[in-house]
């Protein structure tokens, strides 16, 4: 049964249920959200935000986590600003979304973009609330896409679309502890936040600039049971030894990027008692499906039939999704759905046997003398080499074929041999041999560089353009 529907209780009602005391914490503070039943993190000013279009611009994730509960049903629109938003885009965001108020904290950058708005400070602390709140409004939740250039698109959801993929929680014992490597102000992280809020679980959030090892140590100290992140974030966590060895989640979840077989196998080996699942979701299309059989890709019977309120089809090679969890549209009215109500995800899928596999993004193709290559497909092959932790394949300009494929590779373990040593050259040869056995010639990298790390963006995804 889905949580979607007009009668869904407000977040404040959900967290006020006394049967499962939940705590939400970051590096600096831990709060009991049940205290929001008669409390507020806004001092006496909450009513000033009633009916407004509010920019959520706190630096702290924990403050945003509190503010979302308080604003749902009170504000007309919540515009969720991701932590890595470019301040230069703020004026355009404010005018396009009709923003007339902002929730800030001590870490919100000062600047004149927020001048002229009603500004209210949210503290990561809950005090008794004197105000009586006005009747509940329908609130729009606006999220930013993680586009690479220009002003991000603003995607309109509401509580019903955002919780469409959530199952009604089983009678909770309050023992579940969720953690996420995502920021909750991105779609993937917000899903985990809502799972924790609606599932009566606790949630361990990361703090800005916190090293992965410190975050993992806190997750271990809180006894994390459910942990979520992108494949890139998981690969980085697996490299964070020994901190990764201290956690023992029951459920490991990947989404946001292609989960290849190598990362699924690594997680199964690292957490033999956990169930490892990967999910497909996007800010526009919502959560489309989960795959829990430990294999990359998804079964072909997911396409065609309607499953859990989600229909999928493949048109011109890309996955299209129609779902009650899909966004309502973009702020500004640009259409999101095609005539049949489907969102084009831009993710290219290919069928091999009884499964579909993600091949890459429509815009991410490298053209090698007229032959099209998806970098993700080559990365999946390189990542299967036993010495490789993660890799990035990119096009390098070439006078003969326009582009040629090269790869940056991060090895497992420490002690990378000296540059151009015989061991290094032998390992490069071995990785290339492994590629030649699996891939056609034009997809085999012309060169491999060993690098200590790859850049992972605040969205949790590998940075593909420099």
């Amino acid at each position, binding site marked *: 049964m889905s949580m979607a529907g007009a009668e869904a209780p407000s977040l404040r009602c959900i967290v006020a249920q006394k049967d499962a005391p939940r705590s939400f914490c970051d590096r600096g503070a831990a709060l009991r959200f049940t205290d929001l039943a008669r409390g507020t993190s806004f001092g006496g000013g909450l009513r000033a935000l009633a009916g407004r279009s509010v920019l959520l611009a706190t630096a702290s994730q924990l403050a945003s986590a509190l503010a979302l509960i308080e604003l749902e049903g009170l504000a007309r629109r919540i515009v969720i600003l991701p932590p890595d938003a470019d301040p230069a885009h703020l004026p355009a965001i404010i005018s396009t979304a009709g923003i007339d108020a902002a929730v800030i904290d001590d870490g919100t950058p000062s600047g004149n973009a927020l001048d002229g708005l009603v500004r209210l400070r949210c503290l990561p602390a809950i005090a008794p609330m004197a105000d009586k709140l006005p009747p509940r409004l329908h609130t729009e939740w606006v999220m930013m896409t993680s586009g690479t250039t220009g002003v991000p698109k603003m995607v309109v959801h509401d509580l019903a679309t955002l919780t469409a993929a959530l199952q009604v929680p089983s009678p909770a014992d309050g023992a579940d502890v969720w953690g996420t490597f995502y920021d909750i102000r991105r779609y993937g992280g917000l899903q985990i936040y809502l799972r924790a809020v609606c599932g009566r679980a606790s949630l361990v959030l990361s703090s800005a600039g916190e090293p992965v090892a410190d975050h993992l140590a806190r997750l271990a100290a809180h006894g994390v049971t459910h942990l979520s992140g992108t494949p890139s974030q998981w690969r980085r966590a697996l490299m964070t030894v020994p901190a990764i060895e201290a956690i023992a989640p029951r459920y490991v979840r990947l989404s946001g990027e292609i989960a290849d077989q190598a990362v699924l196998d690594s997680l199964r080996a690292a957490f033999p008692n956990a169930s490892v699942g990967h999910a497909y979701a996007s800010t526009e299309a919502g959560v489309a499906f989960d795959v829990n059989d430990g294999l990359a890709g998804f079964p072909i019977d997911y396409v065609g039939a309607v499953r859990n309120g989600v229909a999928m089809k493949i048109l011109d090679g890309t996955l299209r999704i129609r779902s009650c969890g899909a966004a309502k549209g973009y702020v500004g009215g640009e259409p999101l759905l095609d005539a049949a109500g489907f969102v084009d995800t831009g993710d290219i899928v290919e069928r091999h046997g009884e499964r579909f596999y993600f091949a890459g993004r429509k815009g991410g193709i490298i053209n*090698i*003398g007229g032959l099209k290559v998806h970098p993700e497909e080559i990365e999946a092959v390189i990542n299967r080499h036993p010495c490789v932790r993660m890799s990035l394949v990119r096009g*390098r*300009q*070439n*006078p*003969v*074929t326009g582009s*040629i494929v*090269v790869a940056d590779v991060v090895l497992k373990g420490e002690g990378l041999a000296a540059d151009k040593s015989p061991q290094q050259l032998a390992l490069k040869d071995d990785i*290339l041999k492994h590629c*030649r056995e699996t891939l056609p*010639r*034009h997809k*085999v990298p*012309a*060169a491999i560089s060993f690098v200590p790390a790859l850049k992972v963006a605040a969205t949790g995804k590998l940075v593909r353009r420099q």
Partner: protein
Amino acid sequence: MSIKLTIIEQMEQIAREHGKILAPLKEDLVLADCGLDSLGFAVLVARLEDRLGIDPFSAAEEAVFPVTLGDFVKVYEHGRR
């Protein structure tokens, strides 16, 4: 290793990797007949850029079209100076 030897070594290696048979690598060998196809040459230019630090074709202001192996080696020797 000289530039010429580096080029010949890489050509032989790429031919092995791509399953191609090279013609005898003499100065006056016409490149179009050497046995590498355009992808082979693309890989060669990329590998030489890593080893010699230059891509004389992309760096040149005017288009360079070496015809023989000797011309090709000269482009790299010239690019190095």
